[in-house]
């Protein structure tokens, strides 16, 4: 398995996109931190980059990579290798590349300018989001044979998590404004890893006061160690569940 991971990572590094992504993150982070004199404000600007750009690059690159590796996968499947290991190696290779890219691109500047609990939380959420969207991308790629369709689906998935989901939540909140939905919102936020990440970071920033009563309820739940632990477990489930189903599908796939 180590050998396949090695080949996957060499292959990813060879096509330089990950490298450009790292440099892009580095440039953005340093620019933001040097523009703002208050570096915790910088962290807030960086938050939006992490929540929008990281999932986007991670999901689209991974999908295209899986489709482009069709030949490689086909070659490996005819060899004395377990299919499960082939698939998990691809995942590990992609996840490792994105984690390292994020740690260098955003992790290093954050640690330099703002080595606080909030900073560490952004790093943790960023890494988790990278890996989650690799897992989701692989699930979409194994489900659809057609490349254009597969990439289209992943773009829609990203749109859904980054924009549409919030819209739906707002709509529901307004429609059912007469009912006490604050507690239910905690459950709903678990359905979207990006939202969950955003809440975790915002609460660390102590701007929850701006969110009114809902913010207070969130603070009550996500502010505690149990709340944070549960959130991280949910984020981990967002990795494990898609990965489990995509592996199961890949084992039975005809190549």
């Amino acid at each position, binding site marked *: 398995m180590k*050998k*396949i991971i090695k*080949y996957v990572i060499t*292959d990813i590094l*060879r*096509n330089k996109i990950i490298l450009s992504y790292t440099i892009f993150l580095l440039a953005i982070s340093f620019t933001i931190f040097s523009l703002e004199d208050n570096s915790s404000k910088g962290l807030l600007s960086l938050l939006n980059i992490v929540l929008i750009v990281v999932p986007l690059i991670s999901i689209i690159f991974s999908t295209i990579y899986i489709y482009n*590796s*069709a*030949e*490689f996968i*086909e*070659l*490996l*499947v*005819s*060899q*004395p*290798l*377990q*299919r499960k290991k082939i698939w998990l190696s691809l995942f590990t290779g992609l996840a490792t590349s994105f984690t390292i890219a994020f740690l260098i691109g955003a992790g290093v500047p954050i640690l330099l300018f703002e080595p606080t609990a909030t900073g560490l939380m952004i790093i943790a959420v960023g890494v988790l989001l990278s890996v989650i969207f690799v897992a989701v991308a692989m699930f979409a790629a194994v489900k659809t044979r057609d490349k254009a369709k597969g990439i289209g689906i992943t773009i829609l998935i990203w749109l859904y998590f980054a924009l549409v989901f919030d819209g739906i939540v707002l709509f529901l909140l307004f429609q059912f404004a007469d009912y006490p939905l604050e507690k239910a919102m905690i459950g709903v936020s678990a359905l979207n890893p990006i939202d969950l990440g955003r809440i975790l970071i915002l609460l660390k920033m102590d701007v929850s006061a701006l969110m009114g009563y809902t913010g207070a309820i969130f603070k009550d739940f996500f502010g505690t160690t149990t709340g944070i632990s549960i959130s991280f477990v949910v984020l981990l489930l967002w990795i494990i569940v898609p990965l489990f189903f995509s592996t199961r599908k890949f084992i*039975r*796939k*005809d*190549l």
Partner: protein
Amino acid sequence: MIIATNITKRFGKLIALDNVSASCSKGECVALIGPNGSGKTTLIKSILGMVVPDSGTITFNGQNISNNWQYRSQIGYMPQIGRYPENMTIGQVLDMMSDIRMHEGRRDNDLLNEFDFKSLLDKRMRTLSGGTRQKVSAALAFMFDPEVLILDEPTAGLDPVASEILKQKIIAEKKSGKLILITSHILSELDDLATQVIYMQDGKLVFHKPIEVLKHETGEHKLSRAIASVMVQCQ
């Protein structure tokens, strides 16, 4: 050595394999013959575990191949269309395969030497012609000295010199007692190679006979004529 029992595989509405049973043993050279789309490649891919049959079992040396992968270390497979990572060089692909297979015994470089690959090792896979790709596939199939060779249209796209080299290699391997499964539409080639013939049509196995028996039954001396008369009978 390889026993397939009642293999059925559907791709949507198309029945690619319809209740196919066959058994092949050591030292045989089995020619898989049939019109395009008759299920030859699907059968081969099922044996390799690349296609998962809907029903039926395949055993390799007495072991069921489903959920098993070790058996593939005894198979050398040459696909119909060799697809390789485009931005790797020939040398890297060859090294990667040896690395992945962790082959310990003899490494068979005969074909590499005879195809004169030395000058090509630095070429990227995407720049290769169809014939050269085919040579890479052939070299890889024979490289790890496997017990079973599965060759899907091995000489399609090869120049006469290369295809003669490959043919001699197949004959040599057959003599050393390996099982060889071969599909081809060039029947005159199979005349010197095959000992058994499996004829497939529309996903069904029509017959599986030793080549002598087939020639005797049809009264023909050449495989191509014999198969032609069978095909006419089938239609």
